[in-house]
């Protein structure tokens, strides 16, 4: 156990931000899947300063002088995986007092030391949309996080150019958000409460516009309306839990009425309204579980949904909904999608660039493209084989998971201690544990 702790410390030390490379790193010999662009049989990936510098076939890309060489012959390299819907870090949103609480922020509730983050890295995930639950019509503001090393949520969250945390707005309809008053008891009431709130937000937005920057004319700040205004202005994407076909169509109706951009989440019966979804240009983030049911809204869940939506032209991604499914086996989901008719190309996009599109991050992540963040994974084989393991996960050019390191491997396989949250950040202690 002591040995285990020591190796954990060493692994942590090796991934301290200070260790981020300045030298170029060259990964040579792997089958490279850039996602945007064709797969490369024997490719080269060059990263430096946390960004991708070059990617291509061995004869098209020069390895810079002085580069740290990584021989990855026989391996597969693809972009770091993006999960558009995760509950890692035990985030909370609104409490039990009312069904609509846009003011509640996941930012204020995530435990970054949760072992879930280690498991996610072991599964090859590098970016998550961490969301509150589906027990509210509007449960709060989500955050987009990068799984870089960090001991506060501030260090992990993606930011707009103005420094504000990036994230969406979590909404839900159907049975999860229905219960005793003041929560809605029916679908009609659910939609009515949401419309009422958005109409308030529209009026609030108009007052801002009318003030035209004059502080004396600005309305009083309303924390619960601001995120809705951001949604209607396009800065905040609505991530909407919805299962049944009629609930899906209700989401599309509300999205059209108020002009917010929406990503449909779960979409168990999406196959019944695929044409409508595609016509509305609503991207779908799907979950694929091993059997239908478990709740009434999911009894018509089928494994073919992704293929049906692909055929109609909708943008499709998968999500873990961790802990509904385990981040460590995230690649299993697009693989089962292929089993049920999805193309390999869309399956690859569904856990990378399509997820990035749904988080407004497609210019930064989601493919191995020069200039994008150096988030990538090294796999032992084809991404869609059960026998393949994630060997390494790199975030912004820093090795964040290494299966060859027993301390990391523990989180990949599970085992004694894997259920514990990660040890405190110990960069400032010496080997005996004394604070320096």
């Amino acid at each position, binding site marked *: 156990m002591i040995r285990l702790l020591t190796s954990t410390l060493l692994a942590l030390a090796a991934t301290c931000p200070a260790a981020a490379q300045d030298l170029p790193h060259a990964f040579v010999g792997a089958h490279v899947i850039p996602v945007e662009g064709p797969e490369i049989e024997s490719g080269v990936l060059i990263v430096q300063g946390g960004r991708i510098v070059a990617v291509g076939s061995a004869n098209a890309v020069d390895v810079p002088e002085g580069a740290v060489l990584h021989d990855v012959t026989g391996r597969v390299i693809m972009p770091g995986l993006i999960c558009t819907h995760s509950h890692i870090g035990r985030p909370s949103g609104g409490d039990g007092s009312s069904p609509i609480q846009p003011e509640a922020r996941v930012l204020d509730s995530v435990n970054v030391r949760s072992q879930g983050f280690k498991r996610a890295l072991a599964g090859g995930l590098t970016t998550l949309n961490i969301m509150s639950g589906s027990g509210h019509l509007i449960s709060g503001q989500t955050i987009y996080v990068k799984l870089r090393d960090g001991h506060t949520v501030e260090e992990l969250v993606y930011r707009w150019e103005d420094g504000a945390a990036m994230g969406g707005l979590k909404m839900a309809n159907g049975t999860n958000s229905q219960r005793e008053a003041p929560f809605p008891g029916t679908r009609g009431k659910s939609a009515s409460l949401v419309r009422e709130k958005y109409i308030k937000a529209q009026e609030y937005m108009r007052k801002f516009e009318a003030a035209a920057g004059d502080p004396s004319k600005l309305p009083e700040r309303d924390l619960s309306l601001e995120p809705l205004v951001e949604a209607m202005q396009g800065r905040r994407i609505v991530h909407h839990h919805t299962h049944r076909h009629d609930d899906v169509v209700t989401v599309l109706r509300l999205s059209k009425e108020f002009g917010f951009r929406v990503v449909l989440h779960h979409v168990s019966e999406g196959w019944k309204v695929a044409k409508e979804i595609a016509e509305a240009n609503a991207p779908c983030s799907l979950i694929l579980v091993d*059997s*239908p049911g478990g709740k009434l809204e999911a009894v018509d869940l089928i494994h073919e949904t992704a293929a049906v939506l692909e055929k109609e032209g909708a943008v499709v991604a998968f999500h873990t909904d961790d802990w509904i499914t385990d981040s460590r086996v995230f690649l299993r989901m697009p693989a089962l999608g292929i089993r049920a008719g999805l193309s390999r190309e869309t399956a690859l996009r569904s856990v990378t660039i399509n997820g990035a599109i749904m988080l407004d991050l497609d210019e930064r992540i989601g493919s191995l493209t020069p200039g994008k963040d150096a988030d990538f994974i090294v796999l032992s084989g084809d991404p869609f084989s059960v026998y393949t393991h994630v060997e390494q996960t790199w975030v912004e050019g820093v090795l964040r998971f290494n299966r060859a390191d027993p301390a990391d491997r523990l989180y990949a396989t*599970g085992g004694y201690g894997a259920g514990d949250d990660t040890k405190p950040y110990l960069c400032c202690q010496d080997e005996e544990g004394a604070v320096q």
Partner: protein
Amino acid sequence: MTISRAHGVFCAFIAAAMAVPALPGAAQVAVRGGTIHTMNGAPIANGVIIIRDGKIAAVGPATQVQIPDGMRVIEAEVVTAGLIDAHSVVGLAGQFNEDHDQDQLESSSPVQPELRAVDAYNARERLVEWIRGFGVTTIHTGHGPGELVSGQTMIVKTTGNTVEDATIVPLAMIAATLGESAQKEDGKSPGNRSKMMAMLRDELIKAREYRDKRQSAEADKQPPRDLGLDAMVRVLEGEIPLLVTAHRAQDIANALRLQAEFDVPMVLDGAAEAYLLIEEIKAAGVPVIVHPAMTRAYEETRNLSMETAGLLRNAGIPIALQSGYESYVPKTRVVLFEAAVAAANGLGFDDALAAITIDAANILGIDERVGSIEIGKDGDLALYDGDPFEYTSHCTGVIIEGEVVSETAR
């Protein structure tokens, strides 16, 4: 330890009834397979299996086994024995997850060994058909984990319109649970581990005394029939095992202590931390039905490992795999998928396939009928278009006792 295969008069009756084909002529079929995993010797390349009257009549290379004229022939890349899910609650637990279709756990009392699985199994449950579509032909199902002694389990084929049609073993094991999930709150018992063990020991001692009195006393002095104690006597007599769900190492150790005290047949279930007690489990001769490889790690399963099945198997402990029990989404796991992940995490292809066929049959005591493709065994087959464990392969056909029950690629 060996598990007794004595199953009483009722069981024998059911088994005899099952041996009769439902429709004359329906149970004749030939299967041609690129690779046949018989689980009885090396796989056969380009093989043929002939099923007559619901039983395997011939198996061997195509060069040696002649397909009779006029017999229906089905082809597949890969053929395995019908898969066995060694522990499930499917059929008692239904897809809707509403009160009306959840019969796997009765919480009115912590010790109810008298609850029969046959009275609760719904042969028409959609989840039965769902798992069958992936090649599962036999399930050990019944009362689930979550009460100290939750009730009886049974073994069924994933076919039939009634429980009588489906049953092959009406009383397979008595299900018990040690650990947090069987613990009660608000002053109710059992409230902790000591109390659990005290109550379980007390139940077995009561059953021993009941048995002795029933055997020795004159007819008019015998104690009145007690359905619960009747069931526990079956365990004491070594006729059926006690199936003990225990995840933490200390709960597994408690189960082994109980086994040593009463010398009853026992099967460990779940066993998330079994890797900490390999020597002890091996010494006790207790087989383990290991938790699903992808089951969620939290509370008492927080330290589970995807490598446990491989670690136990490599140590020589008999293991089988299971779909387990799910309380939400998905409502059931699929044992094929769990075996696949175990195969990729130290168990390997051969042992993983054995853990859902012949090894499971051995632990369940049904290896004379199912678990391998051998002459005289039930004609239960699963057909695939590639490695059955690969995510992207499909199950292209399922045959139970010679009847093609699924031909949809899944």
